[in-house]
């Protein structure tokens, strides 16, 4: 099996294992949300454009510590616009905890919880699906506000198809809205 295919199989397996295991321990049923974010990369695997990321996610243990989620992404180079260079991706996300009394409470008139998240994602260019790349992200400044999540300044490491470090990325902001 090719290295990149092995990586994808591994990621998908982790995703489905989480999906199978965690609902059994979750106090609340799974919830769904969509997200819009803006990010950029300093990596030869991504162009210098501003990227818009549109994603749909399912989280399995809402508002509980170690809340896993599975997401599907569409990453579009938005400025300059280049639809032909857009990428599709999947990710496994883990919200580490929800902290009620937190130092970023001043950012919103609503009562919020600090909900940092780590993510592992795999992307392929739609025009070249064999060419995998991965990102590992940490979103420290992420708030949960009842209607969804808001985060800014999430940092990521970019890995190539052999899992070698190939640059970094920055997600300027991310807005997520719970559907149900």
């Amino acid at each position: 099996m090719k290295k990149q295919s092995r990586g994808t199989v591994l990621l998908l397996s982790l995703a489905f294992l989480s999906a199978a295991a965690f609902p059994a321990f979750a106090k609340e049923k799974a919830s769904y949300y969509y997200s819009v974010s803006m990010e950029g990369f300093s990596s030869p695997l991504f162009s210098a454009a501003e990227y818009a990321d549109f994603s749909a996610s399912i989280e399995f243990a809402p508002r509980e510590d170690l809340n896993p989620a599975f997401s599907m992404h569409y990453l579009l180079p938005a400025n300059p616009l280049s639809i032909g260079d857009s990428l599709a991706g999947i990710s496994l996300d883990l919200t580490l905890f929800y902290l009620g009394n937190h130092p970023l409470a001043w950012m919103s008139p609503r009562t919020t919880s600090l909900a940092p998240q780590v993510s592992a994602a795999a992307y392929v260019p739609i025009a070249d699906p064999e060419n995998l790349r991965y990102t590992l992200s940490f979103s420290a400044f992420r708030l949960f506000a009842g209607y969804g999540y808001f985060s800014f300044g999430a940092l990521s490491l970019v890995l190539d198809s052999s899992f070698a470090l190939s640059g970094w990325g920055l997600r300027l902001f991310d807005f997520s809205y719970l559907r149900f």
Partner: protein
Amino acid sequence: MKYRMRIVPLALFLLLTIGAASAQDIAFSIGSWSFLPDAAGKLPAESPGLFPSFGVTYGITRYLEAGAAMIPRLTPKPFDDIFIEERVGLSLFGERVKASGGPAVYINSLLEAGFLFGAHKVYSGAPDYSRALFVRLTPITLGNPYYGRRDRMLSVGLVYDYDANSTSLFLTLIASDFYLAPAPKVH
């Protein structure tokens, strides 16, 4: 000439202090700038990337505000381009703040004009500079100083670089102003 030299700075000073910028009317602002190419395909920073803005916004009158911000390039080469902007803004559809201190209109629009100074290729080549004027229309703002936060969405602006004699568009998809005075919490 002497009178003009005394009056102009005095007028500017009065303009900036009228309205008594209290803690409720000073905000820390963050947002994004997306530069689009001019008619010749040239970008203000010569190459694309991520440009967030970090600055201050403060009220001058019930309708007028001023602000300044730093707009550094963060990707792909952090701080290789840095812009500084200064602006004044006018709330179009209602007061930003009420003289009584009560809640002003929650949904508004904002028209701004200002100056944009850029330093380019700060460490990647021979440094270069640009000077430009800009106008920006924000069709939707949500919030105001009373609520402690204001979000500015889908702004479109026009930049005129008068050294290069080029005009281009820019977008600020979203920006948020966080006012220093604590706002009543909404649960």
